[in-house]
């Protein structure tokens, strides 16, 4: 290990207890001092495991079989407890909702510093800086229990930043943040790296947010050789479906160098005089009676209103995306439509039922709901039993079970206990449950949170199929690129109500906060790569098979 190497993985192999196969096999990696590296790869490829090796959670907490060694600033992680490694490594976990120690935001940020004996004046200064860097100043006095998922994520990042560790490990830190919040946080991380020289190891699924300022990218590919190089080189070699939109467009058009950011793409477009296809427009709304109606709906917690006078509707065949900053009440609105949160004013209807009067069980028979934590929908002994029960609860024939399992690639998992499945498999099982019996309405709460690019693309195909079949879909999300691809309308929440609503292009085009990469490059109504290119996109599944055959992959 050289003097400038901060982290070294030396032939690390690791298998979780009771796991059939190792998640890491003879893994070698060196990360230099003050480097900013990105870990990417499909779900289950070992990103989180690698991060957890850095502060010794693997193997000290996980157990299992560990081989090789990890050196962090020259110290062997096997020989030091995690609390000792906390001096070197600040860690931000994937699920911030389960990761708070204190009751208020300020105390949460200060907790780690207190443990490490940071003097009070320095602690106060660092708390202020962390609050500013993560945009959490306005919630500094709030109780952690009252924060939204995104707000908690910011607080978790602030708590890690405040420790000013030499190494910062972040496990999908922006998965729950709104686009502006994600940019703020990543900007803060970049400043810590550039100005304070902190080494940053970041695992992220939304590559478009990070490839522009990453020194190096390691793409984990189980069963294949990993790619470890500058992001431009890695993106040139990897499965094209993983590419951020600007890089994807660059590969289709054969641009060199491959653009990584909107700025790169703009320069290339200007240099080459690239002309996109004709700017598309929003399609007209289906001329059908709405399946979901909100008429001046007011929702709150106790006497504090969260949303006031919200009005919009969703018609069969439409996919309406609810967007807005963290904490604007998106999830609360969905829960209220399912009858799980009191509607304080106005009127709402969902699948011809009134959520203010009708029971959730009755609504659940006609409307599917996919919560943020998909696993909470699964509570039977096997996947098959779960899906069968969902069919039965909607008075549907069990003969449709096999078709449903097949549609979500669950046949081989039918006898498995749902909680033993991987996150991706659980999500597929939960979708099968939510869509059992072909509900006329589907509500989705952040369905792509922590989802890798390939699975996200499969999900997008499913949404388009549901639209074709006339299902009314209402989806709360921060994923702008997904919305641009599948949504027909967007409702933008903010300031306790609806700040904008309309066709997807009408709302997203020109938006500074909710604009897509393509829209930032080309403006007008261009939102996706499909909008921009003049020729149909290649069938990447077939292209990949061809690449494998020819030995390119």
């Amino acid at each position, binding site marked *: 290990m050289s003097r400038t190497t901060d982290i070294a993985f030396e032939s690390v192999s690791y298998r979780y207890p009771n796991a059939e196969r190792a998640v890491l096999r003879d893994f070698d990696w060196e990360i230099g001092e003050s480097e900013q590296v990105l870990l990417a790869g499909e779900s289950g490829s070992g990103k989180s495991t690698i991060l957890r090796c850095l502060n010794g959670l693997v193997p000290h907490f996980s157990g299992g079989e560990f081989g090789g060694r990890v050196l962090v600033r020259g110290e062997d992680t096997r020989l030091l407890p995690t609390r000792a490694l906390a001096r070197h490594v600040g860690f931000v976990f994937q699920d911030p909702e389960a990761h708070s120690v204190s009751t208020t935001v300020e105390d949460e940020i200060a907790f780690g510093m207190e443990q490490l004996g940071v003097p009070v004046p320095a602690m106060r200064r660092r708390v202020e800086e962390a609050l500013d860097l993560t945009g959490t100043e306005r919630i500094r006095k709030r109780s952690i229990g009252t924060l939204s998922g995104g707000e908690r994520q910011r607080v978790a990042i602030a*708590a890690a930043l405040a420790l000013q560790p030499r190494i910062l490990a972040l496990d999908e830190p922006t998965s729950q943040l709104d686009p502006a919040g994600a940019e703020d946080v990543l900007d803060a991380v970049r400043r810590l790296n550039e100005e304070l020289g902190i080494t940053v190891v970041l695992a992220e699924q939304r590559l478009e947010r990070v490839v522009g300022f990453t020194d190096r990218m390691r793409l984990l590919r189980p069963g294949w050789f990993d790619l470890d190089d500058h992001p431009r080189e890695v993106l040139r070699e990897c499965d094209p479906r993983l590419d951020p939109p600007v890089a994807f467009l660059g590969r289709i058009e054969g641009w060199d160098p491959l653009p990584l950011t909107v700025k790169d793409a703009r320069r290339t477009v200007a240099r080459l005089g690239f002309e996109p296809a004709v700017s598309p427009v929003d399609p007209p709304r289906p001329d059908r009676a709405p399946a979901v109606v909100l008429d001046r709906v007011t929702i709150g917690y106790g006497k504090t209103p969260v949303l006031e006078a919200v009005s919009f509707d969703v018609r069969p065949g439409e996919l309406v995306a609810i967007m807005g900053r963290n904490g604007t009440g998106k999830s609360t609105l969905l829960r209220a439509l399912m009858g799980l949160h009191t509607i304080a004013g106005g009127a709402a209807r969902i699948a011809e039922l009134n959520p203010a009067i009708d029971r959730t069980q009755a609504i659940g028979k006609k409307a599917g709901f996919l919560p943020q934590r998909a696993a909470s929908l699964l509570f039977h002994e096997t996947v098959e039993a779960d899906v069968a029960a969902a069919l039965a609860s909607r008075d549907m024939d069990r003969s449709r079970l096999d078709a449903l399992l097949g549609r979500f690639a669950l046949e081989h998992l039918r006898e498995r206990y749902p909680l033993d499945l991987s996150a991706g498999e659980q999500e597929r099982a939960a979708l099968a449950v939510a869509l059992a019996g072909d509900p006329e309405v589907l509500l989705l709460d952040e369905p792509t949170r922590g989802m890798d690019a390939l699975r996200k693309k499969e999900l997008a195909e499913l949404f388009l199929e549901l639209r074709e079949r006339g299902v009314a879909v209402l989806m709360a999300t921060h994923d702008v690129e997904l919305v641009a691809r599948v949504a027909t309308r967007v409702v933008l929440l903010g300031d306790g109500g609806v700040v904008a609503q309309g066709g997807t292009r009408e709302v997203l085009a020109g938006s500074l906060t909710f604009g897509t990469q393509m829209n930032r490059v080309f403006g007008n109504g261009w939102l996706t790569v499909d909008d921009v290119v003049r020729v149909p996109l290649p069938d990447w599944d077939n292209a990949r098979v061809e690449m494998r055959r020819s030995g390119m992959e």
Partner: protein
Amino acid sequence: MSVRTIDPRAWLCWAASAMLLPLTGRNPFALLSVLLAVLAVREALPHDARLGWSWIVRLGVLFAGLSVIFNVLTVRAGDRVFGTIPGWMPLIDGDLTLNSVVFGLLSGLAVLALVLIGITLAAVLDWSAVLRLLPQSLTGAGVAGSVAFSFFPQMVASYREIVDAQAMRGHELRGPRDYLNLAPLLLAGGIERAVTMSELLESRGFGGAPAPVRSRMRALAPAVGLGAVCVAAYLFAVGEPLAALIGAGFASCLLALTIWSGRSIEVRRTRYRPLVWHRGDWVVLVGAGIAAMSVLLAGDAAVRFEPYPELDWPVASVPLTLGLLGLLAPAGVLLWRERDRV
């Protein structure tokens, strides 16, 4: 108003004092006094601090009921026979006595009181403040305590999440079988979240730097000390105050050794927001002290009630009842501060 306005140290003293009687005695008058005092304190809490615990209370009532049944079916002592289970029913055959019913009821009452004290403490206590109070050398106990402390509320959160998800699927919990199906989910979720909590504490450097290598004796001191505390409590509960005192002294020595050896660790924790001890905290502390002293100084008959072998009327001790009124102190402080705020 926040219930956090009462210092966590004061709340801990209050809870310890309130638990003393249900843990050591079965006098119905004293138990009822404690129960009513705890209910009064709960009533003084803000509405949101009282939410979400009703099912645990129901569980407590269920266990209380089970303790009566279990006692009646298994205990054959007592002078008031009200029925007989015939000999062809093995294990439970024999006389059923009113004495066992009374003892079962009182045990149930004690369990209920302990559950209510526990959930009151869980609702009001800022555990992170307690963690900050722990000496560095008791890091392990702090992590274990955090896991235990977070297990129940997190299980409640899991329960709500699952019930909501089931409702969304059009499913309704109907019979015991449905509730039984929930058990593995709740347990798995609770354990997972508890492990997550311990991971988080370690990742945040809880406990600071690792303790320097110590002798085996010193390393064992905290565990032996905490064990001695439990033994002392047990000895007191079974009416051996002298042995309990010796045990407590031994425990104090070991814990003092533990804390003293922890001071040699190079990192001293700092406090971002030092706890401030207010007048109200003194009131709670003094109230808890009076209640505890009244239990410790009351005669055996006032605290312990034995319905075996003869069932007699229990002794009602006026000084003990008056002393237990000290447990009402948090209610008074909360109401006083609420009035000030308005």
